[in-house]
């Protein structure tokens, strides 16, 4: 940071004994062209200033020079000049100067160090220095702003990654179960296929035997026994009705997996427009499927959808993210072993579409409820939440020109209400 000493102009002061004429002489010399005033110093301490403006005024009056020229400067000087300590911060000095300076500007300021005269400073220089300083500040500020925006983007990104991770884990578990039995079934039926082959070979050998021109009765009997044994073993390991159900299960499992994949695509909407006309019921259903793993064994989901719910223009992937967040929160609020219930309602009026998610979980205290949409505020144990989920939900809904509200009672449950305008003009997505 630049300080006042950079503005110091070391100039020989005049003493109180100087005459007005002497001062006029000094002012008229080229060296003092820039000077608006001259400092008057007595015993090393500034006692006043004589300004060019004042002298000009005097000399312009009739007989001014004759009347005042021989007087000492103390007669015409400003006895209360602007005096600034050189150790002061530039800003405080600037503030002091701008508050005390007269208009028009007819004087500069005196710089002292512990009351000792050091020199003078030009107001114009001070202004210039201030301007440069402000410019520097501006650069710093915009850099800070950029950093802030970047770190905010990073936070939003990390929350996205966290909810993505949660989603992926849920989906992975959902796919894991069908994958387990589908894989096993296929491995088993491949084995069964080999057994079938053995059986066929035995039948082939049998047919060759009986169609031989010289059939060997003993061999045929033995072969029949072989076939009988193989057949029995086969039936025992692969009973027909079991095989059919194994195939049905396998197809069912594959159907489950493809449904999950389709839903994942719907949920993320990676291959679709960022803004689309959607039905909130569909968004919620999509989120429910993704959250299935979290909700399963935890809560019964009661849907009370308005079947005639009008579609709205919104960013479906963001809205899905909000519902996933609300559903996950609801599930996490329900204590283990409690018969959980999550009630989802949708409805509309002439202006808005509404969706509410209500749980019978442990509820949120009043004091905490106020902070619930604040970034980094979380009631969850470490590792379970970033504290950003709801603040991002709030932001998204705000961008959609909607509202999100919460009501809660400890021990009874929590209810979130989302409203989105039917005719929306959403702002650029973040």
């Amino acid at each position, binding site marked *: 940071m630049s300080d006042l000493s950079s503005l110091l102009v070391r100039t020989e002061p005049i003493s109180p004994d100087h005459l007005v004429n002497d001062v006029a002489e000094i002012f008229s010399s080229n060296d003092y062209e820039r000077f608006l005033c001259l400092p008057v110093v007595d015993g090393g301490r500034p006692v006043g200033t004589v300004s060019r403006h004042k002298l000009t005024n005097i000399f312009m009056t009739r007989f001014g020079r004759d009347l005042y020229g021989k007087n000492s400067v103390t007669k015409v000087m400003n006895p209360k000049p602007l005096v600034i300590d050189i150790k002061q911060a530039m800003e405080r000095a600037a503030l002091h100067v701008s508050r005390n300076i007269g208009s028009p500007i007819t004087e500069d300021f005196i710089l002292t160090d512990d009351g000792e005269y050091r020199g003078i400073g030009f107001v114009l220089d001070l202004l210039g220095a201030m301007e440069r300083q402000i410019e520097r500040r501006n650069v710093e500020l915009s850099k800070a702003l950029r950093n802030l925006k970047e770190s905010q983007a990073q936070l939003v990104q990390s929350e996205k990654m966290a909810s993505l991770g949660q989603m992926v884990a849920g989906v992975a578990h959902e796919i894991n*179960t069908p*994958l*387990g039995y589908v894989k096993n079934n296929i491995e*088993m039926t491949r084995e069964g296929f080999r057994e079938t082959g053995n059986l066929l070979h035995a039948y082939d050998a049998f047919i060759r035997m009986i169609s031989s021109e010289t059939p060997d009765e003993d061999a045929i009997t033995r072969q029949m026994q072989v076939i009988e044994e193989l057949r029995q073993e086969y039936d*025992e*390991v692969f009973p027909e009705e079991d095989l059919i159900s194994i195939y049905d299960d396998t197809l069912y499992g594959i159907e489950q997996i493809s449904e999950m994949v389709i839903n994942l695509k719907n949920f993320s909407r990676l291959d679709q427009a960022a803004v689309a006309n959607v039905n909130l019921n569909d968004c919620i259903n999509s989120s429910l499927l993704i959250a299935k793993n979290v909700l399963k064994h935890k809560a019964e989901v009661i849907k009370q959808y308005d079947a005639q719910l009008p579609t709205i223009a919104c960013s479906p992937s963001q809205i899905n993210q909000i519902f996933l967040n609300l559903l996950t929160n609801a599930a996490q609020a329900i204590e283990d072993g409690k018969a959980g219930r999550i009630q989802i309602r949708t409805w509309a009026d002439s202006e808005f579409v509404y969706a509410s998610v209500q749980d019978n979980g442990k509820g949120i205290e009043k004091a905490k409820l106020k902070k619930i949409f604040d970034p980094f505020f979380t009631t969850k144990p470490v590792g379970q939440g970033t504290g950003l989920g709801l603040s991002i939900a709030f932001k998204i809904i705000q961008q959609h020109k909607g509202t999100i509200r919460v009501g809660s009672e400890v021990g009874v449950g929590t209810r979130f209400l989302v409203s989105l305008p039917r005719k929306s003009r959403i702002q650029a997505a973040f």
Partner: protein
Amino acid sequence: MASDKPTILFVDDEERIVRSLRMMFRADYNVKVFTNGFEALEFLKENRVQAVISDQRMPSITGVELLREVRNISPNTMRLLLTGYSDLEAIVGSINEGEIFRYISKPWNADEIRETVAKAVEIAQSLEQVALPANRDLAGAGEHLLIIDDDPDTASAIKQVVEEELDQPHVVEWAVSVDSVFEILERKEIAVVISEMHLGERDITPLIKTLKRYNPNVVTMVLTSFRDASALVALINEGQVHRFLPKPVRRKLVAKSIRDAVERYRALKAAPQLAKRHQVEEIKKPADSGLSNRIIGFMRRLRTA
């Protein structure tokens, strides 16, 4: 139905899973499948069962709860958990409460699960005639306990628990390095090992596993603040850890666990065949093969000595 085949139970709330498993195992076993854990327990009360293989997350009863009941009803039945969730709490429960033989992840590998179930059934069958030692056989004066931990506070806390909470005069040894573990093992017959999972930066789970592998009578407890699901699963399958306890030391819990471990050690000593129940799996990923090899070398020397 061939009644001479060993009986195994599969419990999973997804019926397609149990159907698939039934078909897979029906050639060699008398397979019973249940989608409801309580029905499985009812069956267990009336029938001799060699192994129960259960899912963890089920609506009415969790796998850990089920296997804990299985342990009470039929101690000889081998217990295995088959699950798609690496949920830490469940894993810790399966060690401390379920005392399970193996933790199998879904989706499973067909050969591996066949082998694991066969092993479990074989062990159960071979021990059917072995009576569990009576309580009076489990009496004893004091045993040697070995703490492996480089944190002096933990070591002194455990020593204090042993002195103040336990009636028997156990001798507590304390090792802060792998070398001192060797040195102590050479001098003393250790009953219970209470170990951290790390010494400094070093992962010492291979030490814990190898100790159990070459010294099946030793009962191991892990006491750590480290929480990693896959490391824990490996400690079950490859180390048959008897208890998993959190740091810092909780007096009552540690005291109870040491009592259980000493009792287990004495039971194994009275009926060494029982150690089969805690047979370990081959170590899959020797992260620190140098350490494993050193331990194996040491154990061989110790046994031939």
